[in-house]
């Protein structure tokens, strides 16, 4: 007999009917036709009897072999282990069920906390000294350079604040002396801070960045 399903031979079909009969699995027509054949064939009746006894024995051995199982103890063991696991996980599977009003409150509180954090982070971040990155290139002009309509400037400095972005005192004076000063409104930026930048030597031409 093949181990895999295949088209049954007439004998196999008949035997399958015999094997299904104890399950009450036959439809009306199958049961009637089989009963007719059983009535006429003693050997077939013996075969049907074997299947019935086999089916009964299958039921009985399962019931007998498991008759002494203590299912309550089995369940208690399973639950005890799961409870221990839950404790060890810190009740990770447990969730707190909140009423709707508490859910809204908890949501608002969470949103407020996020907002406070974001503002604090922004405030702290803007105070951090950081390079200012310009997208353009810098052009260093000599003090007597003719005014240009536009100059691309990029300033990269470790420290850049209002003092440093303005002119150092000595440079401001030098700029005022320039015969061809840039037109009013032009922003001149010197690199370096008022305190830290080396002051131009007397007579030296100051270097300006012109915006």
């Amino acid at each position, binding site marked *: 007999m093949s181990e895999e399903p295949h088209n049954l031979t007439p004998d196999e079909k008949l035997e399958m009917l015999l094997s299904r009969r104890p399950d009450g699995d036959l439809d009306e027509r199958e049961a009637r036709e089989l009963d007719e054949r059983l009535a006429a064939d003693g050997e077939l009746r013996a075969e049907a009897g074997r299947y019935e006894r086999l*089916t009964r024995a299958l039921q009985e051995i399962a019931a007998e072999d498991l008759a002494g199982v203590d299912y309550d103890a089995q369940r208690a063991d*399973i639950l005890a282990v799961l409870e221990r696991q839950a404790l060890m996980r810190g009740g990770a599977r447990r969730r707190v069920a909140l009423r709707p009003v508490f859910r809204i409150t908890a949501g608002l509180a969470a949103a407020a906390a996020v907002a406070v954090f974001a503002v604090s982070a922004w405030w702290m971040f803007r105070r951090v000294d950081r390079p200012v990155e310009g997208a353009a290139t810098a052009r260093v002009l000599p003090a007597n350079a003719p005014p240009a309509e536009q100059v691309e400037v990029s300033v990269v400095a470790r420290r850049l604040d209002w003092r440093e972005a303005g002119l150092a005192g000595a440079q401001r004076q030098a700029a005022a002396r320039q015969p061809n000063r840039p037109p009013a409104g032009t922003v001149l930026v010197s690199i370096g801070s008022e305190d830290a930048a080396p002051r131009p030597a007397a007579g030296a031409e100051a270097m300006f960045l012109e915006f």
Partner: protein
Amino acid sequence: MSAITARKARTRLDGSDAELVRQTLRGALHAFDELVRRYQRQATAVAYGLLSNRDDAMEVVQDAFFKSYDKLGTLSKPERFGPWLLRIVSNLSLNRRRSRALRKAESLDFGDPADGERSAARPDPHAIRPEQAAGAAELKTILRREIDALPAKQRQALVLFSIEKLPQAEVAELLDCSVEAVKWHVFTARKKLKDKLKDQL
């Protein structure tokens, strides 16, 4: 627990499998306890049918419940907890059989030759003892041995359908095959058993 709370808890535990699964996922261990109560007998019978060893069956059932508890969140149809659990039991039982067979093979290959003599002296649990050599007892002893010797699919189909009386469609789902294939496997298994036990039936 007050009487009212206890009554409420009882009412909830009368719910469907799906409801119990949902409660378990919310952390209610008592809901899972109810699922264990509902399915432990069937799970044990299936494991025993596939393993023919009560201790192994009990261990497999425990493991299956632990696994199902851990994976409960992945169960897409909570109302199908029962078949899902039995599939886990069935798979774990087959794994256990494989590892058991492997251990047996290893002990045969590398064991102390004296073990063979000792085991020859030890009674084989499947061997027919003289006091059993009559009637129903003999039939059942041989039946256990022959069920154990069936190919996996036939044994599973036989246990789930003929012994545990699961619907064929459910067995087909568990075995990942068609209903026709289930019918075939059950028939083949029964025919083999009937032929082996011809003298006792």
